[in-house]
């Protein structure tokens, strides 16, 4: 099997400070990769480099296009990269209001990506939007309400629907459960797990919540001060941490 995404020697500096340095990994189709680490460890910098929001100083991010060709997304032209991020990629922000248009109805939010790739039939766009709202457990009667009238958990689910409507192959998630209370988190994780399995999505999830990665991620990467300190299968890393920092991280989780 060929990887969907090959990350090679990605480094990003902010002046003399290290954002992230020499990150390498492959992501295979259907695989979910978790990236954990404390605040400032470079995990969001890495995610933004991968998703094209930041330009890394060195390295390649090679993505398997629909025709099977591996293309470096760092050096590809901006229109091509933006096309990718409308079709094959999805980005779920930590704060739903970064990823939603708050003054546009839920249906319009979900429909935007469809219209961006050329859908011009109102009835079909709306039907698709209603279908996707159903899949993320938002009832059809809320289709014309604005996200400002939604709860935090609903906003996050709406953001997920809006991202997945064009059938992406790779989803980037930045703290998707951040700021939600635990019962809402649990339902969101359940939903995400279902969608990832059902659609065969590949995903890269950045979080500081080890419970989230244990539920969702197949593989785990631990970052500290811009460097990857440990990688491995999720259960293996969490149950038998090797690096001192990972041991600290795992033992820092509060037990209820």
């Amino acid at each position, binding site marked *: 099997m060929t990887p969907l995404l090959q990350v090679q020697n990605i480094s990003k500096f902010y002046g003399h400070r290290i954002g992230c340095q020499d990150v390498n990994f492959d992501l295979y189709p259907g695989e979910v990769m978790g990236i954990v680490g404390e605040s400032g460890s470079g995990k969001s910098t890495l995610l933004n480099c991968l998703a094209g929001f930041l330009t890394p100083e060195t390295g390649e991010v090679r993505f398997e296009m629909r025709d099977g060709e591996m293309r470096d997304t760092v050096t590809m032209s901006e229109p091509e990269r933006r096309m990718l991020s409308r079709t094959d990629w999805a980005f779920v922000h930590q704060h739903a209001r970064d990823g939603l*248009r708050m003054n546009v109805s839920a249906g*319009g939010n979900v429909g935007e990506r469809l219209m961006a790739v050329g859908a011009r039939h109102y009835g079909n766009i709306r039907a698709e939007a209603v279908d996707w709202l159903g899949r993320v457990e938002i009832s059809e009667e809320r289709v014309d309400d604005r996200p400002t009238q939604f709860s935090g958990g609903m906003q996050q689910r709406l953001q997920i629907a809006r991202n997945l409507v064009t059938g992406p192959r790779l989803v980037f998630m930045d703290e998707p459960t951040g700021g939600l209370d635990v019962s809402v988190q649990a339902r969101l994780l359940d939903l995400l797990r279902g969608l990832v399995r059902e659609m065969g999505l590949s995903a890269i999830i950045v979080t500081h919540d080890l419970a989230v990665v244990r539920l969702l991620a197949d593989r785990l990467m631990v970052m500290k001060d811009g460097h990857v300190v440990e990688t491995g299968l999720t259960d293996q890393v969490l149950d038998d941490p090797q690096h001192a920092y990972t041991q600290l991280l795992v033992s820092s989780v509060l037990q209820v």
Partner: protein
Amino acid sequence: MSDYNFAYLDEQTKRMIRRAILKGLAIPGYQVPFASREMPMPYGWGTGGVQVSAATLTPDDTFKVIDQGADDTTNAVSIRKFFEKTAGVATTEETSAASVIQTRHRIPEDELREDQILVYQVPIPEPLRFLEPSEVETRKMHSLEEYGLMHVKLYEDIAKHGAIATSYAYPVKVEGRYVMDPSPIPKFDNPKMEMAGIQLFGAGREQRIYALPPYCQVVSLDFDDFPFEASKADHACDMCGATDSYLDEVIMDDAGNRMFVCSDTDYCASRRKAGHVGAQGTPFEEDAA
């Protein structure tokens, strides 16, 4: 003549504006930035249109100004007088006699010819502005032809009102490339934009000029199942009886009486001169108030 340079602006400024106009004509629908000058009128009163007219007028031109189709409103009268004074050009109220027509919010009912220029006053040239507040982002969207967002607006209209409720400043796509704001003309006028005359758009406050060369393809955006419709009040003009012109609704008293009249005053007057009389009209008399 007067103590002003011809048409108020200095020659260097007019050359700068002409360069922007030529660039606009070369790239139909593209918003060309220009160094908009202070004009002796407030922003929002047509400073963009006035600067474009000033750069376009020659001493041989005949100038007409309309505001919402009318020649006799404050804005139209003031701008007409401004150029009478500063350029000394001939002015007219007759659409067919004018070589340069400055307009606010309407296209004349009479079809324009190849030797006529229509100058629009534009308040907000960016059709994506209310959807995307960042100018950096909207410029990028234009350059990459990312216009999905424009349809989100139309989608919202249908979701809220059951039809595309946008009735003026209805977005158009020019020559299959740039999405353009046609200035706040009623969508009734949109189909007329594929015309023989040159159309120039000036936004003074926003410092943008754009243009449509003659016979340019101008398509109003829509959905397959909600096609574009050039709507008007379903009525005939009460003064001249015209059924094909855009109408203003005028409230006559507090008892619910109203009348519909052509918004294009020249069109209405010339029809009445030719003997047409509407439901509430009286036969035309020369010099009647």
